[in-house]
């Protein structure tokens, strides 16, 4: 792993603004979309981003985004999109969360 700065960082500690420990890695690429939603309420759901954003909303406790994702997944669930959503759900969501969809 690369080290930042002069290399004498005193070790690992969780801090509230550091999201990398709260969000699983698969979700990170979609964080900017979550941020856009927070700033502007703009959101276009598709089979790629739906489940990661749902996970993101759950972790960050953003209720409105969570609901949008749940509704959205119901809408975009088709035969071609189903495998992707299913595999995302299995890898990203815990049991209780997956049940809600």
């Amino acid at each position, binding site marked *: 792993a*690369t080290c*930042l700065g002069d290399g004498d*960082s005193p070790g690992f*500690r969780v*801090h509230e603004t550091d999201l990398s*420990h709260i969000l699983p890695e698969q979700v990170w690429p979609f*964080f*900017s979309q979550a*941020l856009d939603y927070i700033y502007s309420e703009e959101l*276009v759901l598709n089979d790629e981003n739906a489940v990661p954003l749902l996970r993101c909303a759950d972790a960050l406790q953003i209720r409105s985004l969570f609901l949008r994702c749940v509704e959205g997944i119901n809408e975009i669930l088709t035969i071609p999109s189903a495998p992707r959503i299913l595999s995302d759900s299995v890898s990203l969501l815990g049991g209780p969360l997956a049940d809600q969809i």
Partner: protein
Amino acid sequence: MTTKPVAKGDAIDFNLETMTVEQGLHLIEQERVQPLLTYLRTGVFENRNNMTFMKAYSVVVQFGDQQQHSFKLYSYYKKVIQDYCTEAMSSLALVSGEELLSALADLWEKNTILVFWMQRVFQYLDRFFTKSSTEHPDLFKAALQCFTDTVYSKVKDKCVAAMVAVVNRERDGYEINQDVLRLLVEMLCTVGDTGPKVVKQKEGIDKSSADRLLWQSQARGSYKNDFESSLLSATQEYYRNKVAGWMAAYSCPIFLAEIQKRLDDEESRLSRYLDSSSETELKRVVQMELILNTAKQLVEMSTGAQSMFQNQRYEELKLMYRIFRREPTMLPHLISVMEPYIEQRCSRIVEDQQMIDNPPTYTERVLELKKEVDDMVVSCFESDTGFQKGRNKGLEAILNKDTRCAKYLALFSDLQLKKGLKGRNEDEVQSLVNQVVGLFAHLKDKDIFLDIYKSALSRRLLNKLSVSNDAEDCFITKLKVECGQQAIQKLASMFTDMALSDQLQEEYMKGSHSGSPGGVTHEVRVLQTNAWPEKADDAPVVPCQEMLTCIRAYEAFYHAKHNGRKLRWIYNMGQVEIKCHGLARQHLLVVSAYQCLALMLFNHRKEVTLKEVCEATKLPEEECRRQVMSLTVSRHKVLMHDGTGKDLSIDAKLQVNSSFTSEKIKVQVSLIKKEEKAGETTALAEAPVERKHVIDAAIVRIMKSRNRLEHNALLEEVFRQCTLFKPQPTQIKSQIEHLIEREFLKRDEKNRNAYIYLP
């Protein structure tokens, strides 16, 4: 939650708690800014959707709340953009013309991408830091400011000049790079905006189409001030020069086509790359040069409007109209050529002696012309009201020079209703009626038309000459629309009379004598006085015994139904069929009622003189001679006389021509025409008399409601009320004098110019 081992460049272990702001910025520089700048240079964006965005954002959030740190973040943000612009300027300063434009457009596009991504990372600063600060504008504005100061203000003049030059090059037909211009227009519209913003927009309507980043701005300050004004003056100069050349080289139609092409071209330019806010101004300048400054000359060119009308070049006229319509004040130029053209075409018909001698052809030709110019106004000038008025003026100026058209049109209608429309279907009838009534609408002597129409209608109805009742109805309905219920009231009541008479006749036939008292079958038409042009005989003609029986029977029948109504008999409107035994073989003679009276005398005597006929029937001598003479001419020589030649003296002895024979059993005896075509002259003379009454009535009506009115105001009102003809002011004046004499009006003592109504 477990931490996984990090992949290279993906997640860097860092501790925000202990991290310094310099370390944070270093991270952002390494993870976000450098990849972005690389992308702008090479087109490869390694970390576009990279996970490091989240961390970079986290850094900004971590330090963004503390004033001293957030200033550092803000300064760094500005520096990145500033550096980018400064570096780009070093190469921009060396180029000019189209090269400058494409380099500048490229810079603008890339700078937009840079600003968009930078703002995303630093957007947390806009939440608190820039909001609470007056000296630090928000991120977008600060970025735009950098660009304006570093780039735009330095190249502005060169850029605008080059853009205008490129637009002119395109006007000359060269290919240009529209994308460059579109980007630069976006730049001009954005620079100077106080609340700009970069947004992502789908390039197509399709959801899956690529995103495009663009500035959303309402400013347009630089576009208007720096560019548009310059574009407009260049445009004006460009077209002024062009027009001068075309004027010398082109014929009118080619000129028009060129103008149309240029107008379309400018319109497409607006939609292709100029800002839509330029529409009004650009169109104004272009149209001033291409239309306002050329229209009059275009119309007057030798290949101009006049020749187009003469040669019926409708496509060219249409084009001219379409172009001029953009500048409606130019339309009168075209109308002022159309009017005399229509007048000329019209004169060619109505002043042609051959036409004058042949009323049906005259009318047909006028109707054809009317249809032709109507069609022209519809197809070339889109029924523009100005052109409709011009057409009306042109037609009416010629047609109303005299009353001939009104008369001929009425005669034509009669002819059509008697013969012409036979066997035509409903649509054909409709279209003919529309044409006739359409022409009628142009006439100012409507009363003359209606007068002749009325007497013709009366003849058609009484003699059953009409081809179809539907056609008659159609005429009346259309005339009613054209000149109102009032004017055709009498015509309508004629139809009512006919219908009522038919009913009466039916009932009469059911009487004890089965409609033939004394063995004579007869049919009666009861006509309202005044509604019909027919007048009861002035002379007290003595009907023969057989007729008298019929008259009495009918009168008895009628009076039983309508008490108090008086019937007066118009003997000579009728026709009589008589069975003649004294001839070589038995014939049925169809004669007029007067002729019948004369012939009946031969039942009692063998020889009768004309004088005796007159005495017995009380017919005036002149009329009596005409009627009797018609029976002695060679075609139907029913009677013989002892005189020489054709003329019949008052003492000529008449007797039945016992050797008369004809191929047909039924012989129609036609009357000798009255000398001098009375019909035409009386119709001409009658109208003015009637007009006097109409004017009188109008004056009295107006004065009764107004009590006092000045002369001119009264004239105005009279003009408005007389819809069927145009009264002459002198005519009205003399009627006023007349009414003063008859003490309907008097002049105001104080103001001699005003009249007072005398109740």
